């Protein structure tokens, strides 16, 4: 969680290089498919990007503070989406906005609690142990969440059958009165606006939180130096738990957005792919760097949407290709700084 550093000219050169690639590829796309399609895909891509960016934020915050690749983050995202679906569906009779905000708040709170629980049970005991052991439990947590929540409710004993989601798809309730707009042949809905606005709002809130509150300051201190922070009287355990809570809450919010946008939650396994994309987005921007996660998320969302419109396999591949190419030239991500190893 640090501000990107680096020489002014180098940054400018990178921005120029990236910009010219973007301009060239959009020019090609417009020439092939026309301007209307281009703008339409751009809007869709920004919508998808705002979902990825929020998931990537949680990823990068956890990484920034304990240097753990939280493989379970995609499943936390899945959990948030399901909670939002249940709460929103139950409160739909109270009106659209009540249901929407209740679902948002409830899913963020419950998922934050899940995140804290996971940290407490699976990661905290291993914090001072070798790195790979926490990584293994992260994978274990991921497999557990997917398979546990996919258990069919009739096959599990009493208290748990109210907890599991079942292996089948569920329809996500319409939490907003969706209006369709058309402007010069480009179509968009309330959801496009809501996703984007919600993502930007949450990001601003996060930036405020990290830079202007006491616990945000503590988080930055712990990310910088755990022992030093402890000596300054910061409760490291609480701070890390708070980071997990915030990261998981953001994942839940984006889970809600995902559900509203695509209208269906395929199965408790659906978090794997967005989780992977968010991981890539976080690394692409420079893992542990908050503006990097946002940049990476939007880049992933937009490029995936465009590539999918050309060929669905390319849509799956494009994020990995971009990642490989960027990391070959900029090994610490777009906004990261390559630290020379000192002897």
């Amino acid at each position: 969680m640090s501000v990107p550093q680096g020489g002014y000219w180098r940054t400018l050169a990178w921005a120029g290089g990236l910009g010219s690639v973007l301009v060239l590829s959009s020019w090609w796309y417009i020439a092939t498919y026309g301007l209307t399609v281009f703008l339409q895909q751009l809007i869709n891509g920004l919508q998808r990007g705002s979902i990825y960016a929020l998931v990537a934020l949680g990823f990068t915050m956890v990484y920034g503070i304990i240097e753990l690749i939280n493989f379970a983050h995609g499943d936390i995202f899945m959990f948030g989406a399901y909670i939002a679906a249940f709460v929103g569906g139950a409160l739909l009779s109270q009106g659209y906005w009540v249901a929407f905000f209740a679902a948002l708040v409830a899913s963020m709170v419950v998922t934050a609690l899940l995140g804290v629980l996971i940290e407490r049970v699976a990661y905290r005991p291993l914090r001072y142990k070798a790195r790979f052991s926490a990584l293994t439990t992260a994978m274990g947590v991921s497999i557990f969440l997917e398979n546990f929540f996919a258990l069919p409710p009739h096959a599990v004993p009493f208290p748990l059958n109210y907890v599991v989601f079942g292996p089948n798809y569920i329809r996500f309730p319409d939490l907003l009165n969706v209006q369709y707009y058309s402007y010069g042949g480009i179509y968009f809905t309330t959801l496009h606006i809501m996703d984007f606005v919600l993502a930007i709002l949450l990001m601003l809130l996060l930036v405020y939180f990290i830079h202007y509150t006491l616990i945000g300051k503590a988080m930055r201190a712990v990310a910088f130096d755990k022992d030093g922070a402890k000596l300054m009287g910061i409760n490291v355990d609480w701070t890390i738990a708070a980071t997990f809570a915030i990261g998981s809450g953001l994942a839940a919010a984006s889970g809600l957005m995902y559900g509203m946008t695509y209208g269906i939650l395929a199965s408790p396994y659906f978090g794997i792919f967005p989780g992977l994309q968010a991981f890539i987005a976080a690394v692409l921007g420079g893992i542990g760097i908050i503006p990097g996660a946002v940049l990476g998320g939007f880049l992933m969302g937009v490029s995936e949407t465009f590539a999918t419109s050309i060929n669905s396999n390319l849509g799956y591949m494009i994020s990995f290709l971009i990642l490989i190419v960027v990391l070959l030239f900029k090994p610490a991500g777009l906004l990261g700084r390559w630290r020379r190893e000192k002897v």
Partner: protein
Amino acid sequence: MLYGAILFSHGDLGVDVNWITDYYLQVLMLAGINIIVTIGLNLINGFTGQFSIGQAGFMAIGAYLTAMLAKLVIPLDTLSLIAQIPAFLGILVIAGAAAGAVGYLIGLPSLRLKGDYLAIVTLAFGEVVRSIIRSSDEIAASLKGWGLSNLAEVIEGIGGPRGFGGFPKFDSLTVGVLSIPILFTLVFVLTGLTVIVTRNIVYSSYGRSCLSVRGNEVAAEVAGVNSTRTKVLAFTFSGFFAGVGGGLFAFVIRFLHPDNFSFLKSIDYLIFLYAGGMGSLSGSIISASSLTVLPEFLRVVGFEQWRLVVYPLLLIALMVWWPSGLMGNREFAFLAAPAKGLPEVLDVTDQEPEHVV
């Protein structure tokens, strides 16, 4: 001993040993394959201290190449049983070498990338391989457009998203009262061979340089170790073993689909490796075999629904209470360092890792 039981069970001894069915045989073969691939992964992640999570990509290359060669180029089913085995071994070596060559290419970025950045590049590599296989029909179509219809036919044969099946099958060889399941024997022998070869790699001077790179790369360079060569070679070996494992996998499962080789498959191998203990061949052997058998065991004892819930819980419990894995970095006696004054394997799992304070 187990192998002996399997030999007899397939023979006509008049003894009813029907508990060893083809299902058990297949689980055991998968355990062997998982041992091979995990040991290969151990060379990168355990002994050289790099971080690869794209092992499934190498496996996919090995599996698809083996299957293509065995079905389309050297049709194994037209050969006699005696000729089949060397032909199959030759194909496996070719497939492994191809995967190793790709491993060499993937190892090259490891000169620049470290830790998690390297990890995600290997992950991306695995997923790109899978996507390419999945879009094989489109590739074939464009090859046809360029007039390469022979090549296009071969590419079309691997089926893309439809999957790739119908490979020739190995029968059992009957010698007197014994019936020898050929494929099982091959897997069994190759697993043993992999263990011995890897043990020799690890205790060779090259293996020592791997350990020194893991300990401290700069110090290793200062001591005259070519860390670039060491790392790239580790990726090559690892790719080779994963390729051979993939080739065997193709013949055990007898149906290939790109989704068999997803990111989750790579995760499986990481779990095998870390649960066994990094840098311990014995640990890889124990954990790869037992964690392959465990979910199937849970299935057999009636936990069908719960097996993938219980399995990660056991894994988490193992890691929390036994953080350096089952074996830590100890070895069985027959895999331990030769006594000639060589030091014990460097101890990294117990020392404070540099990232986490």
